[in-house]
């Protein structure tokens, strides 16, 4: 600015003739200078932006073309058609669900494809993954399957117990997205029981519909939302730190005392609560049978018209990442033939803290059975489990307790069971983990074994050890 003002002053000081002569020389110079001054500015803008954009687009197009060619080749290989007859839409390039799952029958799941932008710019309101009308091709399925299994060597000093190699549960976890808001889920489990024979069970069969963040409806057979553990860990030992579930959450067909499974309907979702992160679950179902020799889960027929219901509420506060605390209440009436009705109430409260390295689970419950006109039986139980991961090693400690009356009308064989378990989980690879666990359990008021009581057997504090290999596939 100063230079320009100085220039004006100087121009006024120069004689008129010189000015005119100089103007003739200066004009072309100025013109040329101005052109020179403008040119680089234009060049910079065009070169830097346009060239980069163009290069980027060329690279993208090249990559798209390459993927298209691969996709065409793949389609040709699948359909057995060769040559130019096979066409592919540009949007149907390789894309897959990041769900670590297997897709059956060579078809990527319906949701795994993107369609090209419609020419008229209109966007589909269908499934976001498809962007168009969905059709189930009968020649392929759209099932996502993951598998889990375990195998181990177990032994203990309890009377009659032998050391054994054992096949655990082999679990096929199958999901299928039926539409944007509906999915099917099942757990098909193959397991071996005490008689060494294989048995297959559909442990969970659920049709789920997600209406919004505040309401998800499910129907079928599911894990009852009693407390935390039962819905956090289903039929796979892979996800759990220890070799076994806590005693109070054992499955019904393995001597468990809770109605782990229920057949019915479930509603769940968030409760608008800001940073508190409240959620609810409400369930209505058949409940469990009161007949000790019948299938514990009433999959098809309920023994009475009374329905079991369960309500749970839990919080995941933003302020403490990994913390979940909740409460649930389950209510049913057990009515065995020729026996008084037994109203059953199960109250559970828990607080768990799960982070990538640290895990601390605490859960307590009370099971109340109140036969009409008789004594009321209340059975308290809890477990606490703590572990921390050090690289691929995760040592853990669990302590559990349950104290049931020997006259308890539903599970008289349980008595008092309490004691610690210590162990180590070692994640050898991303898909294989080894677990080593030692259990010490103090027992009292157990049912007789071979006609002898626990005291007579002098085996009231059995210990057991387990080596387990868990894997996913």
């Amino acid at each position, binding site marked *: 600015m100063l*230079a*320009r003002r100085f*220039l004006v002053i*100087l*121009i006024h000081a*120069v004689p008129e003739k*010189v000015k005119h002569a*100089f103007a003739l020389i200066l004009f072309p*110079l*100025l013109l040329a*200078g*101005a052109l020179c*001054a403008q040119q*680089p*500015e234009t060049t*910079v803008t065009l070169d*830097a932006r346009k060239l*980069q954009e163009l290069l*980027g687009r060329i690279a*993208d*197009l090249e*990559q*798209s073309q390459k*993927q298209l060619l691969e996709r065409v080749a793949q389609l040709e290989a699948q359909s057995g058609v060769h040559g130019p007859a096979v066409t592919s839409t540009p949007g149907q*390039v390789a*894309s*897959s*669900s*990041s769900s*670590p*799952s297997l897709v059956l029958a060579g078809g990527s799941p319906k*949701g*795994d494809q*993107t*369609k090209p*932008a419609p020419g008229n710019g209109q*966007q*589909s309101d269908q499934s*976001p*993954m498809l*962007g168009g009308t969905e059709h189930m091709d009968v020649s392929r399925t759209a099932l996502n399957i993951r598998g889990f299994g375990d195998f181990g060597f177990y032994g203990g000093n309890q009377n009659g117990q032998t050391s054994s190699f054992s096949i655990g549960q082999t679990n096929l*976890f199958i*999901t299928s997205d039926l539409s*944007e*808001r509906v*999915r099917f889920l099942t757990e098909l489990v193959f397991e071996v029981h005490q008689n060494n024979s294989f048995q297959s069970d559909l442990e969970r069969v659920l049709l*789920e519909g*997600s209406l*919004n*963040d505040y309401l*998800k409806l499910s129907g079928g057979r599911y894990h009852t939302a009693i407390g935390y553990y039962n*819905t956090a860990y*289903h039929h*796979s030992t892979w*996800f759990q730190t220890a070799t076994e579930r806590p005693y109070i959450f054992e499955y019904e067909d393995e001597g468990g005392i809770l109605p782990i499974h229920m057949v019915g309907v479930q509603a769940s979702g968030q409760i608008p609560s800001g940073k508190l992160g409240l959620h609810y679950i409400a369930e209505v179902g058949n409940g469990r049978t009161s007949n000790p020799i019948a299938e514990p889960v009433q999959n098809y027929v309920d023994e009475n018209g009374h329905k079991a219901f369960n309500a749970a509420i839990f919080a*995941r506060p*933003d302020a403490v990442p990994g913390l979940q605390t909740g409460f649930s209440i389950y209510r049913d009436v057990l009515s065995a033939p020729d026996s008084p009705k037994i109203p059953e109430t199960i109250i559970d409260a828990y607080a768990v803290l799960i982070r*990538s390295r640290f895990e601390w689970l605490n859960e307590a419950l009370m099971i109340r059975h109140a036969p009409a006109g008789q004594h009321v039986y209340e059975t308290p139980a809890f477990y606490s489990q703590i572990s921390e991961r050090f690289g691929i090693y995760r040592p853990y400690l669990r302590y559990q307790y349950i104290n049931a009356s020997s006259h308890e009308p539903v599970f008289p064989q349980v008595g008092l069971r309490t004691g610690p378990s210590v162990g180590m989980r070692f994640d050898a690879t*991303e898909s294989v983990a080894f677990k080593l666990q030692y259990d010490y359990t103090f027992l009292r008021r157990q049912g007789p074994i071979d006609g002898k009581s626990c005291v007579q057997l002098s085996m009231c504090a059995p210990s057991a050890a387990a080596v387990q290999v868990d894997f*996913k596939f």
Partner: protein
Amino acid sequence: MSASGRAVILIIIIVISLALPRDQIAQAAPSTADARGNLSQSLAIVVNRSNPIDNLSFAELRKIFLGDRNHWSNGHRIAIAMLEYGQPERRAVLRLIYRMDEKAYQDYLLRGMFRGDVFVAPKTLTSPTIVRKFVFNAPGGIGYLRASDVDESVKVIRIDGLLPEDKGYRLQIDESSKGTDD
């Protein structure tokens, strides 16, 4: 001073004055280049253009990617697009939003599907171009791109009120972290 002397001074001054815009251009050029460089390192969060959302807090963004929030305010189910394993943008998202490494992310996803916390897993897409197409076609789509890869087919949303070109924008790709979080 003679007339010729004045003329020489005049020419010098003219040359200097003409040179001034060149200096300004010279200063502007690296500045523009820096901006382009920053854009290529900034991670833009993109949604479908029909999505009414313009701004998300970082906490909300995290809830969306973690699967704690599954629906937009307009009712559409949220469909997350992830780039393939190993790409710098994906590593940045895992590090900054998920706060997990690749293994922990896979485990989280599988566990979430198993428990029912994650209704539908994110889609893994092969390139930024495919991410753009996916988000363009999916009314509930959300994905991430280098800011330099964004075009008009998708909508960039503000995170905590900031766009990728703004100072203090927190989603930055750290190329030096290559491989460390795998």
